[in-house]
């Protein structure tokens, strides 16, 4: 593989990986607050893309109206998943939220299949996809630059939020000790709902950003959800930066493998790499081993 091929694969991979990372931030947020994750995250990504297509393209609303509405629905959907798919089980100490969230994701997928249709749809080109520039003999579009910028921007904002703001500190407090947080007057249920809603927004943003590069369809989120979870585990669920970086690493690895060996090898080798990495560092690449305090 020559340098040009490698470089072009890296550009494509960073864009794709940022989407994994952004979706994985949703896993990070809910896991750090409640110890649970939302496996309907992939379907939320799809919901973001489908809604922005329906409102923005089919109904012809301006994107600055369509996008916030789509994100609000993504947030509401994730909060709903928490209320009916996670809380009832987590309260009883059951792990059944695992299956419940998967099931809710499948239900959403099928509802969209019925209402949106089976045909994949395409986002029309905008200045983001049309405008490009040459970088070391390689053509890069604005969207390809925007995607990692938004991804890392959100990771940065999230990091600032949890370390600086009161609400963020409340989240961390809930993460550290639920009962103590409750005694301190923090509304634990509300914080958990908020965390899920936030995770829904991240997935929705990822869905909207990826839509112009990909096709919009009911099934588009499934593989993203799985890969984002792989990125979350790989990153170690310890801090937003690690999760985001792990997503980018996974995406880049996939793209470089495709460029080097062809796409028949992409899934085999990239997931093998994930397993090797976790075998060597069970706490994740950027996580630290936690000591369970009794």
């Amino acid at each position: 593989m020559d340098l040009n091929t490698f470089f072009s694969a890296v550009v494509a991979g960073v864009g794709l990986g940022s989407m994994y990372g952004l979706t994985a931030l949703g896993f990070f947020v809910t896991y750090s607050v409640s110890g649970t994750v939302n496996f309907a995250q992939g379907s939320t990504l799809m919901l973001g893309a489908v809604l922005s297509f329906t409102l923005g393209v089919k109904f012809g609303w301006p994107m600055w109206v369509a996008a916030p509405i789509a994100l609000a629905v993504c947030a509401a959907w994730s909060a709903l998943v928490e209320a009916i798919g996670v809380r009832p089980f987590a309260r009883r100490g059951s792990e059944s939220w695992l299956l419940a969230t998967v099931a809710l994701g499948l239900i959403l997928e099928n509802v969209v299949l019925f209402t949106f249709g089976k045909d994949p749809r395409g986002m029309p080109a905008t200045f983001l996809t049309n405008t490009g520039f040459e970088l070391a003999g390689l053509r890069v579009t604005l969207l390809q630059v925007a995607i990692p910028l938004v991804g890392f921007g959100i990771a940065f904002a999230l990091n600032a939020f949890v370390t600086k703001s009161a609400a963020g500190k409340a989240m961390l407090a809930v993460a550290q000790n639920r009962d103590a947080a409750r005694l301190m007057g923090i509304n634990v249920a509300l914080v958990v709902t908020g965390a899920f809603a936030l995770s829904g927004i991240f997935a929705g943003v990822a869905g909207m950003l990826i839509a112009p590069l990909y096709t919009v369809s009911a099934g588009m989120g499934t593989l993203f959800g799985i890969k984002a979870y792989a990125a979350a585990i790989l990153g170690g669920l310890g801090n937003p930066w690690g999760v985001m970086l792990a997503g980018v690493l996974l995406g880049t690895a996939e793209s470089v493998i495709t460029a080097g060996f062809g796409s028949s090898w992409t899934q085999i080798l990239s997931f093998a790499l994930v397993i090797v990495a976790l075998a060597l560092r069970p706490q994740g690449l950027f996580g630290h081993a936690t000591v369970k305090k009794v």
Partner: protein
Amino acid sequence: MSSKPRLLLLAAGLAFACGAIAQDIKIGLVAALTGASAQSGEAITRGLAIAIDELNAKGGIMGRKVTLVRRDDESSPPKGLAAARELISNEKVAALFGGIDSPVSLAIIPVVNKEKMPFIGVWAAATNITKNGANPNYVFRVSAQDDLVDIKLVRYAMQTYGVKKPGLVLINNPWGESNEKGLKVAAEAAKIAIAGIEKIEPNDVDMTAQLTRLRNAGADALILVANAAPGAQMMKARERMGWKVPVVSHWGISGGRFDELVGPTAGDAHFVQTYSFFGNLNDAGKRVFTAMQTKYGIKTPADVLAPVGTANAYDAMHLVARAIEKARSTDGEAIRKAMYEIDDYAGLIKTYRKPFAPNDHEGLGPDDYIMVKFEGGKIVPVGK
């Protein structure tokens, strides 16, 4: 009137009705009538129905009325197989037509060969539908065939763009594999080299990696075999790279909203069809288009959904009618032999002259295929 004569009358009427039905020649169709490929089944139905209307207006076949019996295979091989069995043993059809899905046709073929039932494929392109190894072989086709399409694609790329080293972009499934073989053979026959073969997955988001490999290998054109969505992903990657390489494609991309998915560069992909209602139509073309206007409310050629299904089915129905007339029988074996005896037929796609032979069950060949592209939401020809 007492009830007895009335009953008698009813019985007589019933007997008459049954007699009339027994006289009809039934033509069976097993195709996707619902689901994602429903348009294809509708297009085939239209072609068959218009041909059958024409036949019946002239007194039917051998003086017997022709009727169409349709069954939905829902694109599922087991359902198609069950429907074919039912049409053969219960409806006693004289000939059976197939739909868009190669796997469904491949599932039906052993049964039609065993039951001596003439089967005419009017869409599905898999090479081994007609080349199924059976002797005698009851399977004929009036459509494109993968191996022949591959020859056409290579030839078109060379003649139109002076291509010497095309790169192949193939969907990673049995259809892609079958065309990989066909394209290699076609390239070898044309004495050109293949720059590289890249597989794409239906879920691939970014195909720049595959295309970069082909570009570095010196590909001067891309030959694409994929359905609309992955095909569109390839076109978008090509556009992002700013690589203005010619794209020549199998007809898979015509099955969805390819032009919407790709955007402005959709027209850069030239792909194979057997027929287009645009341009100067021959007599059959004018006749069929007028029939579609009155029967289905079509206004312009652009309104014709899936023109290949209608055109192939129309010509195939007339060819079968001629074979039955020649055989003077609806016996499957007699029809099969008569298919080889069909003389000239001035059809929609071309004038057929002895279209079938015992070693050639393809009604159409690479010279009959046309190349088309998307333009403003329509499929328009780009010339032979």
